[in-house]
């Protein structure tokens, strides 16, 4: 899957994009967020409080309970502030 990070999520993880094979036991966005948090360091910080984070799967806004497939594009970012 393709993971994308924006704004302060990108700054904390230290990258804007990465490729990842769907890890064992990761069924939903929540599972993926927990997996990434467990990497510790910047990832630990970025995913410490999911209430401050939003997610899009395949470029649609969605919730953390969304099921994932290996072909998905998953983006993590703070609430949007454009306009």
């Amino acid at each position, binding site marked *: 899957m393709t993971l994308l990070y*924006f*704004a*302060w999520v990108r700054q904390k993880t230290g990258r804007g994009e990465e490729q990842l094979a769907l890890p064992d036991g990761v069924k939903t966005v929540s599972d993926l967020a927990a997996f990434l948090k467990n990497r510790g360091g910047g990832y630990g910080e970025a995913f410490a409080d999911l209430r401050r984070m939003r997610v899009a799967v395949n*470029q649609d806004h969605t919730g953390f309970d969304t099921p994932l497939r290996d072909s998905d594009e998953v983006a993590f970012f*703070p*609430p*949007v*502030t*454009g*306009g």
Partner: protein
Amino acid sequence: MIAIRIQREDFDIADEIAALDAENTGAVATFTGLVRKEGDLTALTLEHYPGMTEREIARIVDEAQNRWSLLGVTVIHRVGRLTPGEKIVLVAVAASHRSAAFQACEFLMDYLKTKAPFWKQEERNGKAQWVEAKLSDDKAAERWRD
């Protein structure tokens, strides 16, 4: 005519309104968002999610077209580093009647603010800080739910 553009460059509002030109247009409502000239704010830098941004804006415009009878919509959103006084966003809506033009323009702005994947970083005194989303923007967008 529908035009959606994400760009670094500035735009000319008069040109954009002229480009909306359509038979039967009696009303054009526009909204322009600018970087405020305010205290120690030296710049705003806008980041976005290429691909999703265009899709999300197209979806919002579709929704506006379902709700109101519109003759043209232009949405331009700038990205990159902008200094105080610079334009950030333009929404222009052409319709036969002013009520549709006004309402659709306000709707589009409310949804752009809460749905389109842009993020603003402010520079003040050489320090950069991400802008926090505003609850008032969520509330503004909620007005449109039936």
